[in-house]
């Protein structure tokens, strides 16, 4: 039989291979997410008038109203982009925002507009930038093979919470579970909240209201399994049993050994915890990474236990 015939036979056989039975929990999860995707995002920009924040003078002295006229991107276009529940931000713009939002030194109108929109939603721009910086750390970590791809998950904690949102995480979880929880925060939170094994709801990626990082997260963090993220999150938040924590540390130690990092699992976990507990450290780490240009140097400088 020729290669052509064998090839066609194999492909046709694949099609006739019989029914595959998807896992019921995978179907349930897909249904949950699909239904959540139909909910309108909280703080939608639609219908917002001149008080949206775009027309006000930025604290840095830049007249955003004037800039708006000069820019080709309309406010609705920008809003659509920022409306992360249904849109993905242009990666190039995200990259620009990553490097420039915090300092605002580039003067880039696009970046400033993003910042203005974020601020108009009560989102801490410096915090966002800090998160993005940590995200870059994570990306860099992935590229260098370090287990730092788990950092972004941790770092997403609460920085993206709008400043005027006084709800606790439990309250947000409740909102997500309510049938009428029309809440962008909740929507995104649900993307990673349900434990596929037990169906248990846990605190994980619950701070992605504008979806700015969602794209990057799914793009770059795919090597971290849901289980890894879940365990890390539980371990960090103290919600894990000692046995489970020990199992997680064992796996983490193996990953660290694979990557050749000179740290113990306990040190790395403690370092993550330290970062997790001190939001101000994020930006500092990002700046140091810029200077050092090497994640491992930054890790060595900052993530050692005292």
């Amino acid at each position, binding site marked *: 039989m020729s290669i052509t015939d064998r090839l066609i036979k194999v492909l046709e056989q694949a099609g006739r291979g*019989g029914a*595959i*039975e998807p896992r019921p929990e995978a179907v349930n999860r*897909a249904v949950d997410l*699909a239904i959540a995707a139909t909910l309108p995002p909280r703080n939608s920009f639609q219908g917002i008038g001149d008080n949206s924040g775009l027309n006000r003078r930025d604290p840095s002295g830049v007249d955003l109203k004037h800039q708006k006229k000069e820019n080709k991107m309309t406010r609705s276009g920008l809003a659509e982009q920022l409306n992360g529940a249904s849109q993905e931000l242009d990666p190039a713009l995200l990259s620009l925002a990553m490097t420039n939002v915090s300092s605002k030194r580039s003067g880039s109108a696009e970046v400033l507009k993003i910042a203005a929109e974020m601020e108009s939603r009560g989102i801490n721009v410096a915090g966002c930038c800090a998160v993005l910086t940590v995200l870059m750390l994570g990306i860099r970590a992935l590229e260098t093979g370090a287990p730092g791809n788990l950092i972004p998950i941790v770092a997403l904690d609460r920085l993206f919470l709008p400043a005027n949102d006084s709800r606790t995480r439990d309250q947000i979880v409740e909102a997500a579970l309510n049938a009428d929880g029309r809440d962008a925060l909740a929507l995104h939170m649900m993307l990673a909240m349900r434990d596929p094994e037990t169906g248990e709801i846990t605190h994980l990626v619950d701070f992605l209201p504008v979806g700015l990082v969602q794209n990057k997260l799914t793009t770059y963090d795919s090597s971290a399994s849901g289980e890894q993220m879940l365990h890390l999150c539980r371990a960090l938040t103290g919600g894990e049993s000692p046995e489970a924590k020990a199992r997680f540390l064992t796996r983490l130690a193996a990953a660290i050994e694979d990557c050749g990092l000179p740290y113990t699992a306990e040190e790395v976990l403690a370092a993550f915890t330290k970062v997790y507990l001190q939001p101000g450290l994020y930006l500092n780490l990002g700046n140091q990474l810029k200077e050092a240009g090497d994640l491992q140097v930054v890790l060595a400088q900052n993530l050692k236990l005292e």
Partner: protein
Amino acid sequence: MAYEQKKTIIAAQSGDKQELERLIRMNYTKMYRIAYQWARNHHDAEDITQDACIRLARYLPGFLFQSEFDSWLYRMVVNAALDWHTRDKIAPNGTTELNEEVETGYMDWVGYNAEDRVFAHEVFRYMDKLPANQKSALILVLVEGLSHKQAAEIMECKESTVSWYIFEARKNLEELLKK
């Protein structure tokens, strides 16, 4: 289209979440099957199908019954698979990674000897090396048994383009397998 399914679609379009759930459950296996042909492993197939379900929910109100619902559905899955391919299959250095962990899957291997199985494994591995459009065409036409016309509708291209994709895909695969 079956009357029952059309009724479900219309209800789901009007915001009935129970009917949306019903629609997804009715079609999940079909979607999963295509996703699996793309990814050749259950983990990624679940991710692709999940993404396709989210797209289905978002874009369903825009479905105007001007095409077959199945074709529209396939398009959601194929697009989700293409995004997955772009997102997860590109190594940091910009080269496409070859999936070494490909599963030969749920195929019925009755009548296959060891050599045939190795050959099949190679086929699926090398399919990952094909350009995305060629792989899509191959899956839709040769694996799923759709007509070139149906595949063209799903891939939003001309029928002749699908034929060309398949021709090229087969040629490329054969060359790879001869090495």
